[in-house]
């Protein structure tokens, strides 16, 4: 018994190791992963790392350039930009993560149901998804924010709704092709229940494309969150926000470049990271590379 379980875990591990080995061969994706790990650490430990409070104003140090005391310089109210970037990460990552999780759950359930059940249910669900899809996600987000009022959780919910169609489509297309697989058919013939088939068999087999979508949507989510803040409808002050810092900084571009450049770079890093990871995962999940 114990030896059996042992063997099992070993095999699972070796499969995972194989996957990791394939992933690591994609150098760009590894760089992306490194960037994301850094961002994640910085986000989690923002309050430990940040030398100042993100809202602490210091009128003796207004618009100071990068220095040892203020690595990214200070803004027009004398706040430390480095600290604000760190806390800005916290805000943007919280929003994006919540948004993507909401979209993943809503979209996957919708897509799996539509794809697996087919027929009228498919038509109904996917036409609703198409309606959502017909709006550019930013416009949709703006409209929803206008209705909900600007707030951190409002933005998260908006992201969740705006990205649901993407997950729904990916999940549906996977479900449609998996539905035709004989092992699904044989489960039906053997009397397995529909939820069991959908969540125990179709979902695990569709997980690759979904994970790729998650990483790519993270990149978009960060951008959208920043954009909404840039437009002034996202996170409201005094919460530090990378997008808002860009807006505020743009007026000082010729005198205090650091004010907007550092937040800009800060936005770029996770976006590039998630994109390269997404591409790397896509290649790794590609069935053509699976050894058989």
């Amino acid at each position, binding site marked *: 018994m114990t030896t059996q379980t042992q063997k099992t875990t070993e095999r699972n591990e070796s499969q995972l190791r194989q996957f990791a080995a394939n992933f690591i061969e994609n150098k760009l994706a590894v760089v992306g992963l490194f960037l994301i790990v850094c961002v994640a650490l910085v986000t989690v430990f923002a309050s430990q790392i940040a030398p100042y409070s993100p809202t602490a104003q210091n009128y003796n140090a207004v618009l100071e350039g990068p220095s040892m005391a203020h690595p990214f310089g200070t803004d027009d109210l004398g706040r430390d930009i480095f600290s604000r970037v760190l806390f800005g990460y916290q805000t943007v990552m919280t929003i994006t993560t919540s948004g993507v999780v909401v979209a993943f759950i809503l979209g996957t359930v919708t897509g799996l149901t539509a794809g697996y059940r087919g027929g009228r249910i498919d038509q109904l669900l996917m036409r609703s998804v198409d309606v959502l899809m017909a709006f550019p996600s930013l416009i949709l987000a703006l409209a929803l924010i206008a209705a909900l009022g600007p707030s951190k959780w409002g933005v998260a919910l908006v992201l969740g709704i705006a990205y649901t169609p993407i997950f729904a489509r990916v999940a549906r297309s996977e479900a449609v092709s998996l539905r035709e697989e004989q092992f699904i058919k044989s*489960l039906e013939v053997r009397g397995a229940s529909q939820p069991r088939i959908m969540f125990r068999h179709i979902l695990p087999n569709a997980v690759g494309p979904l994970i790729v979508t998650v990483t790519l949507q993270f990149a978009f989510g960060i951008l959208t969150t920043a954009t909404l803040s840039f437009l002034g409808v996202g996170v409201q002050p005094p919460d530090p926000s990378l997008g808002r810092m860009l807006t505020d900084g743009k007026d000082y571009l010729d005198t205090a470049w650091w004010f907007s450049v550092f937040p800009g770079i800060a936005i770029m890093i996770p976006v590039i990271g998630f994109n390269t990871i997404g591409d790397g995962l896509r290649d790794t999940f590609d069935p053509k590379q699976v050894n058989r």
Partner: protein
Amino acid sequence: MTAPVLEVDGLSKQFTVNSGLVSRLFGNTQEVTAVRDVSFEVGRGETLALVGESGAGKSTVGNIITRVHEPSSGTVRYRGEDLHSLTGEELMEYRQSVQMVFQDPYSSLDPRYKVGSTVAEPLKIHTELSKDERQERVAELLETVNLDPAFANRFPHELSGGQLQRVSIATALSVDPDFIILDEPVSALDVSVQAQILNLLMRLQRERDLSYLFISHDLSVVKHLSDRVAVMYLGEIVERGETAGLFEAPVHPYTEGLLASVPQANPDDHRRGQRLTGEVPSPIDPPSGCPFHPRCDYATDECTEMNPALEDVFAGRDAACHNWEEVGGEAGARPDAVTVAEESPESED
């Protein structure tokens, strides 16, 4: 024959094609008849083979029996119970009693589940066994199909085609079925592996008194494994009878042509008889009268107008052909046939 386990009576199935939104709005749909008025019985411990070329409707019949599709008309009775009246408990019992083995061993197992979990899945659905009991049962089942029980911890991609097909069979056996539908179970396998699986299927049938519905296009395998054969063409059964007799002396021109088309693994024994010319017509626009008449050398005017019914042509043989007596040349091969009374015109659809 003992009381049949499975009785199929007058089964028909129409599919709607071209079901786009626009055509549906204008009621502009086309019906395709995949199966038309098919009847047969399978007895306990017996193998009935459904043979035919692609588009013959043999897989649709299998799908109706497993309730993947609903029939448009006709009934399927399992141990006397009408299959389509079964609900709840009874339906679960039916799903336990009737199992299926599919053609492609590589796609019939969930690639993310270990072999042991796949074999145990029906046990989870249909029984109350504990985890340990299930594992024990899985080990037994794998041994039954001549696999090392250690295979339970492997993933499907680590197994060969033949091994996977054994796992599929073990999964089907896990809930002690009485009836197994074998949908082309060996056609994806290599010759040497095919022999192993056929032996296994024959042994299991003997040991467990299983009934098989064997769906196949491979006539040499069908000849070897089945007790009776039903030959399908464009959704209809055109000839039905004991395997040996049917292969020896077919009375339907299609069966004759089909048998003549099978390459024989013997260069000295080349195919005899009339081979099939032309191709299977589209089921969307089937020929009038007998569906086989455009390819048939025996066709007469009658055949273009009236579809012959499947009738008892002599003891143990049914055929749907107006001119069956002409088929095969010398009539000596078959028992003295009772001259069939005039074909009763049968209204199809």
